[in-house]
């Protein structure tokens, strides 16, 4: 399993300056590593707010990464619509897909994995997946690719 220090260094080395996040039980394991890195961690109160903070950071020339669970991404739809399609800012998100492994293994009936990718598609966002078996090289490549994309993009994180 990819650990926090690997994630934090991958985010940093990809060129991101800020992490704006509302963690879930999976993403939250990265907190200490992010805090100990040179990334600036911003803690908003809900996901649409995280998207808007990232928009302001982008306007000001910073390189933010929004990290949220898919449930929060669903909630943040209008903020995403505005930032990506009205303002046309290159918003970058990591969206944790809750229960992805458990549903795959028949151990959960959580419907989050059912809706995550279709909702990302609905907002017109290019996306890639990273799965639990990913190695460090794949992780680093995923963040580097996300950061380098000219347009708004999503990395769906299978939890």
């Amino acid at each position, binding site marked *: 399993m990819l650990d926090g220090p690997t994630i934090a260094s991958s985010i940093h080395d990809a060129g991101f300056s800020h992490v704006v996040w509302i963690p879930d039980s999976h993403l939250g394991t990265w907190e200490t590593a992010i805090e100990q890195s040179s990334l600036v961690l911003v803690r908003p109160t809900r996901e649409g707010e995280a998207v808007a*903070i990232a928009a*302001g950071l982008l306007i000001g020339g910073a390189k933010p990464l929004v990290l949220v669970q898919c449930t929060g991404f669903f909630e943040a739809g209008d903020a995403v619509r505005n930032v990506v399609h009205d303002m046309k800012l290159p918003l970058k998100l990591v969206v944790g897909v809750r229960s992805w492994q458990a549903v795959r293994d028949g151990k959960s009936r959580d419907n989050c994995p059912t809706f995550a990718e279709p909702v990302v598609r609905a907002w017109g966002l290019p996306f890639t997946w990273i799965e639990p078996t990913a190695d460090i090289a794949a992780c680093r490549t995923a963040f580097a690719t996300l950061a380098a994309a000219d347009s708004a993009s999503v990395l769906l994180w299978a939890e």
Partner: protein
Amino acid sequence: MMTHLQALEVLAEVRGDRVVITTMGSVGLWPKLSDTPKDFAYLPSSMGQAIPLGLGLALAKPGLGVIVISGDGGLLMNLGCLVTLAQHDVPLTVVLIDNGLYEVTGGQVLAGAGKTDYAGIAKSCGITRVAQFETADGWRSEAAECLAGDGPGFVWLKVEGVRGQATPSPPRPMAEQLLRLRAAI
């Protein structure tokens, strides 16, 4: 009670070189008072997101003064953003235009209109620089001081509600606004 326009006229006198982000009804009024590259009409918008957008800008540009003019309806859609704002030592002042109405949709009554203590909310969230005014004279007498000082601030302005207002339009397309703002900061 002051009018919305009077509230903004006072602000225009004291805003200095700060970035001013306008929302909703203020978008239609502010360009008559100021239309520089540092005046950013957040329209089209996502309601309730102007304050976090301003916070992001302030975090990206340390020391940049930012004023966000928010309506009461917009603030209520995202009250938690005041908690977030209070965590950061940034020179950002929220100017709340409280008319008790969803003005741009015709003037429907807002939840809690006339009863909500926005200054109390701001203080409870941890913002220490908080003021409130109902008259233009009172606001004018302390406006400059309200914008000065370190850290986030919150100014609650009670204004007359007006029904039947036309839906405002931004003074120029979003792409052009962003280019102007980025070049100016």
